[in-house]
Structures are given as C-alpha cells and as structure tokens.
C-alpha cells in the first residue's frame, strides 16, 4: 500500500525554487531524503505538511488528499523537525499531558514503554536532554499515537555515532511489521547505507533520483583515468575532479564503455551526491 505520494510539489522563493518535487513511499519501508545543505529537504517536508504554503502540487497520505483530510491524516503522521526544539524549560511530563489530548488513538501504555526503553526522565526539561534524547522524545510522542508515517527532518544530525546507530536500528525495528514507513532527511549518507530501502536525492530544489538504494548504487560508477583519457569521456561524465595524475569522476553505468579503459568501481552514496552537486555548481575544475 502506498503510504505517501508527493506529486509535483512547487514552492517559489525569491532566490530558491522547489521544482516539481515528486516521489512516493510504500508501507513498510524507510526512505532517506538526501541532498546538500539548502537543497530543499526541510522545505519539502514543511510544504508537504502545510507549514509552508505550496505554490503547486498535491500530497497524498494513505491514498487521501492531504489538503482535504488534513486533520484526520495528521492523526496518523508523526512529524518532527529535528527533535524537540520547543518548550525548552517545561518538564516532559507536562508537554506530554498536552500532546496526548490531541490524539484519538493515544496509547499510554506504549508511551510508558518507549519512555522506559529510551531511558527518558519525564521530570527533565528538553533543555536538560542531549540531542539524541530529544530526538527520542519526539519519536516516543510520534509512536505513542500509532503514527503510520514518520516524517523526520535531520533526526541523526548532531548525534554521536553510537546514538546514530542506535536510532537507525530502532527505525529498522519500527518498520518490521510492514505497517509503518519512515521518511527522514539527512546529509549523513552513511546513515542511509545502513538502513534506507529507498533514496530520494534532491539538489537545488529538484529531485535528481528517487529509487531503491541498491538500484541507485548500481546505476552509477566512479571512474578513474589519465589526463589523456579525459577529453574522450568528459561529455559522458556527470562531473569529475582533476588532479595531477588524471581524474576521478562519476558516470552512469550505461555510459561506461570497456574501450575507454577507465578503472570503474561501485560508488558510495556520498560520491553520487558530491558529483551531482559539482555538476549543479558547474564546478568541474579543482577548487585549489
């Protein structure tokens, strides 16, 4: 079942535009939403949830138009813009006492369970929690109303590797029953190598790729060659970095030809992101 479908989302700012952002996510999967800083990840999430007024496009959650059924659909969505960044001086207990009232399907037992599991102290205030704990509190709130779709902006940024790993494991666990899906934005590509089933890559307000992670990785090759080989293959390169001994670049797998004699290897997500970003910036020459 398709839990989320975003169709041709547009938003115009003076100096930035989201252009026809479209992607979809089925139940039971994790989608990583990646892109450089300022590429439009958080703006997309905000526009999806109506925090930013969209200039075009539609969003469907559980097959229903979000704008028409906003109140109802939000009961099934857990949304967090990077952990708890509100009411820093109010004890968690009081914040929860407010949040629970708004959800018809609030499950107090589940809430207690997550609070224990995350070792959260309800008498503490958000300001006394570490970054990781704040994200966990936001997750505990989202999970206690049985959210089917979790939309999380940068949940892992600012966390240490141990906390990140822990969180990613939790994500995996959450989707196991095939009911929930998670869409989370990040610029830490190694997070996605650990747990994402799908990757949506946004660059300068435009979706460059949105597909299964392995499919995405298989679609590109990092190629290395000598300076002499560069001119022959450069039209087929997404972008490249030149150095004293030749160049390293990114190429679509179907563009790699054996007769070029280039060394080709599987890319990491980071490579795909970096070389696409270089293309966007029109900066193919070394920065030094």
């Amino acid at each position, binding site marked *: 079942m398709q839990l989320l479908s975003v169709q041709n989302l547009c938003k115009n*700012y003076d100096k930035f535009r989201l252009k026809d952002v479209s992607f979809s996510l089925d139940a039971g999967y994790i989608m990583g939403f990646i892109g450089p800083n300022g590429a439009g990840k958080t703006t997309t999430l*905000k526009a999806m*949830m*109506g*925090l*930013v*007024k969209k200039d075009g496009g539609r969003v469907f959650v559980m097959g229903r138009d979000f704008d028409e059924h*906003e*109140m109802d659909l*939000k*009961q099934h*969505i857990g*949304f*967090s*813009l990077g952990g708890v*960044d*509100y*009411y*820093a*001086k*109010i004890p968690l207990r*009081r*914040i929860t*006492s*407010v*949040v629970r*009232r*708004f*959800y018809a399907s609030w499950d107090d037992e589940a809430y207690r369970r997550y609070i224990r599991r995350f070792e959260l102290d309800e008498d503490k205030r958000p300001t006394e929690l570490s970054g990781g704990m704040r994200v966990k509190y936001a997750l505990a709130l989202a999970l206690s109303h049985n959210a089917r779709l979790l939309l999380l902006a940068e949940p892992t940024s600012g966390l240490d590797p141990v906390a990140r790993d822990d969180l990613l494991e939790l994500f995996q666990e959450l989707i196991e029953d095939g009911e929930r899906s998670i869409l989370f934005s990040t610029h830490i590509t190694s997070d996605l190598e650990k747990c994402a089933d799908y990757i949506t890559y946004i660059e300068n307000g435009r979706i460059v790729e949105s597909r299964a992670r392995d499919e995405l990785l298989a679609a590109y090759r990092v190629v290395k060659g000598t300076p002499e080989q560069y001119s022959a293959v450069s039209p087929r390169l997404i972008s490249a970095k030149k150095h004293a001994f030749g160049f390293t670049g990114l190429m679509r797998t179907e563009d790699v030809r054996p007769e070029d004699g280039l060394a080709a290897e599987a890319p990491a997500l980071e490579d795909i992101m970096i070389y696409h970003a270089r293309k966007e910036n029109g900066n193919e020459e070394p920065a030094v």
Partner: protein
Amino acid sequence: MKNLLYKELALVVHPMFYLVPLTGALLLIPQWPYFVAMMYFFFITVPNVFQTARTANDIGFTVMLPVRKRDVVKARLYNVVFLEQVQIAVAAPFAARNNALYPEGNFLLDAGIAFFGLTFAMYGLFNLVFLPMFYKTAYKLGVPIIAAICACVLFAGAAETIALIVPGAAAVLDGIGPQALARQLPVLAAGIALFVLLSWLAYRVSARRFERVDL
C-alpha cells in the same frame, strides 16, 4: 477548542499572569479613569504571553500536533479572549464595592454596567488591531502592540469625552444605582456583541494572514 485552550494555559501562560486581573482592585480608587485598570491586561499580560510563546517556539510545537495551521491562531485567540474575560470577571466585584463606597459617583465614567460594556468593546478593538497585525509575521510584536494600545487609549479617551460633552450621552454611559441599570444594560449587551464580532473578525483576518507565513 478545549484542547487548544488547555495547551495555551498549560504551556504558554505563566501562572503569574493570573494575578494581573487583580489590577481590578484599582477600581477602588476614588475619582479615577477606570479604563486604566482594565488596560493592565494589554500593558502586561499580552506582551509577556506572546513573548513567552515566541521564545518557547510555541508555533513549532503546535504545528507538530494534529491541527490545522490556522489553529495556531485560534488557540491564541481563545487564550486572549479567556484572559480578557477573567480580567473583567475579577474587576466586577471591585466595581460593586466601588459603587457602594462612592455613591456620589466619579467625575469621569462610573464603574457601572455601561463601563463594562465599553470595556468589552475596547477589548474587541484591541483584538482586532493587535492580532491581524501580529500574525502578518507571527514574529514581530512591538509595532502591533503599540498600535493596539494606542487604538484602545483613543477609544477610552473618546468614550470619556463623549460622556462629558455630548448631551444625553452621560445618561446611558454614566451613573450607578438601580435606575442606571435599565439604561445601561443595552450598552453592556452591545459591548459584548461588539466584542464577539470584532474578535471573530480578528481571527478571520489573522488566520488568513498566518496561512501565508512560511514557517
């Protein structure tokens, strides 16, 4: 509505601001402009409540809840209207005491029934000027609060002046005692009606403006 108001009272309004309505005790001062006692609400409570909410990122919190964006505005409107009513409710017994203490009346408007009608109208005017101006940005507080206070001071000044110089106006706006009650009740009713109408209008315009704010 219950949940939105609960959110405001549990998180946004510091308990200290429930003491502000005690400024209603100023109605015990003899020979005084009684509107001032009712103005402490927007001298003290409103700027502090909005400032607290802004600092605590209340908007960020509220939009995470399963509510519409305009419910951010609605919650705050409920809050303001609730506190305005508390301010009036607490002032009422002091007004009764005032009437008993000073049967000769006040040189300006008496703290009678019509005075409360005018207070309702003044609060309605405050809501109408302040909320739509504030929710244009949902951030900038200074100019909207100053503009709304100026509007209210002008309104109160005009009411006092009209009662003093317009013949016949004092008969419906001023005076205490049983015979004043019948003449002034329509003023109270009109004040309440105006308060409801202006507050509703304030919400409509504010919500529309807030929908356009990119959070």
